[in-house]
């Protein structure tokens, strides 16, 4: 079954549309409530995990960069494993930023739709607009730091819908019809790609428990890990990666690519 991933600036309209589509097509749903299960499974503080999904690491928020990347990898892993299982409507979990080029996944960006907040006072309206712009900037900063992708980039999506111009029911009808197209039917190629992404996420999640600066790709059970460190730590880091990945289910062959951490080396040589 196809998968629908929604991303929006307007959380209320997004939820309304997602739930209506799921009901109409009898699809399961995957949304922010799923964070409870992720927090339980990976023994993470639920509130802190919610914060990690919306803000970048900061000392003031007592959220280290290492923990932030690890907690996001837990979300990525659990969402991908869920999507492998069955078709569903997914929103509120930033899946549009890590579920990439899967032909049976329809990714839709919903923009606008803020008109329903009635503002008779002009000052209030201006304040509201400024608040939206501020939120958009924060989301862009977050999505770049987390996945190196701009959330508002239309190239990430199959479709962009302006909620200021199209009514909720029309959006629901359009998307349910689109999901019925043959082109969004799951096939061996797309299912394998999704499984590969889930495997890469599983490996990354295990590595991020103790290591940093990890990038993982997987294809047909072959896993390529790219990492960096100072030159003298090279062998130690590669061995550590091999040891951890050796215990991950589904890995057939492992290749570790190492890059020199130039910044740290330069900083050390200045001491």
């Amino acid at each position: 079954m196809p998968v629908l991933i929604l991303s929006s600036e307007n959380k209320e309209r997004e939820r309304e549309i997602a739930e209506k589509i799921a009901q109409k097509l009898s699809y399961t749903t995957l949304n922010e409530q799923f964070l409870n299960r992720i927090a339980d499974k990976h023994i993470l503080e639920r509130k802190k995990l919610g914060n990690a999904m919306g803000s970048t690491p900061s000392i003031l928020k007592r959220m280290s960069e290492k923990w932030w990347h690890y907690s996001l990898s837990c979300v990525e892993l659990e969402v991908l494993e869920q999507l492998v299982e069955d078709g569903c409507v997914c929103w509120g979990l930033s899946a549009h930023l890590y579920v990439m080029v899967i032909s049976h996944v329809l990714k839709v960006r919903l923009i606008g739709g803020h008109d329903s907040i009635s503002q008779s006072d002009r000052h209030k309206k201006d304040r509201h607009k400024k608040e939206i712009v501020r939120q958009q900037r924060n989301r862009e900063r977050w999505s770049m730091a987390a996945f190196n992708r701009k959330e508002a980039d239309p190239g990430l999506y199959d479709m962009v819908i302006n909620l200021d111009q199209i009514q909720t029911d029309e959006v629901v009808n359009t998307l349910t019809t689109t999901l019925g197209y043959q082109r969004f039917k799951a096939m061996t190629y797309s299912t394998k790609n999704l499984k590969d992404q889930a495997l890469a996420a599983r490996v990354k999640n295990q590595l991020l428990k103790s290591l940093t600066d990890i990038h993982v790709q997987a294809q047909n059970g072959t896993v390529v890990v790219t990492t960096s460190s100072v030159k003298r730590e090279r062998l130690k880091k590669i061995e550590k990666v091999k040891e951890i990945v050796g215990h991950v289910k589904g890995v057939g062959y492992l290749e570790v690519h190492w890059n020199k951490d130039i910044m740290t080396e330069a900083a050390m040589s200045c001491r």
Partner: protein
Amino acid sequence: MSKPLEILLLDDEAIVGKRLKPALGKIGCKVEVFQDPALAVKRISEKEFDIVVTDIYMDGMDGMQILDLVHKKYPRTKIIMITGYAMISLARESMEKGAFDFIAKPFKPDDLRAVIAKAAKSLGSSIQFDYNSVSG
């Protein structure tokens, strides 16, 4: 015993037919292998196959043309596309044009056998194949 599934396999790389013909034979399929798209088209004009497995990028004629041709002439035939240049746009286009499935190369013979078994099922035929034995 039911009639064996008749499969036409078209790929310009000889090794593909050489490897897959015995693999499909093991699950009781009768396979005709072609490397030249023109000869395959000629054979398709003479006979209706249950399943056509075709590569996409070949000299002379590409797999999308084969897909169009078979789909128009024999709507019942299941067409499986295989390619070493898999892309999301190509995969979606193939499915839109009526392909039964789309597989990226390299793949294991078991991957194709699993798809053939699914195609057989949708044709009302049956093949003994353990889906769970296909990894990844």
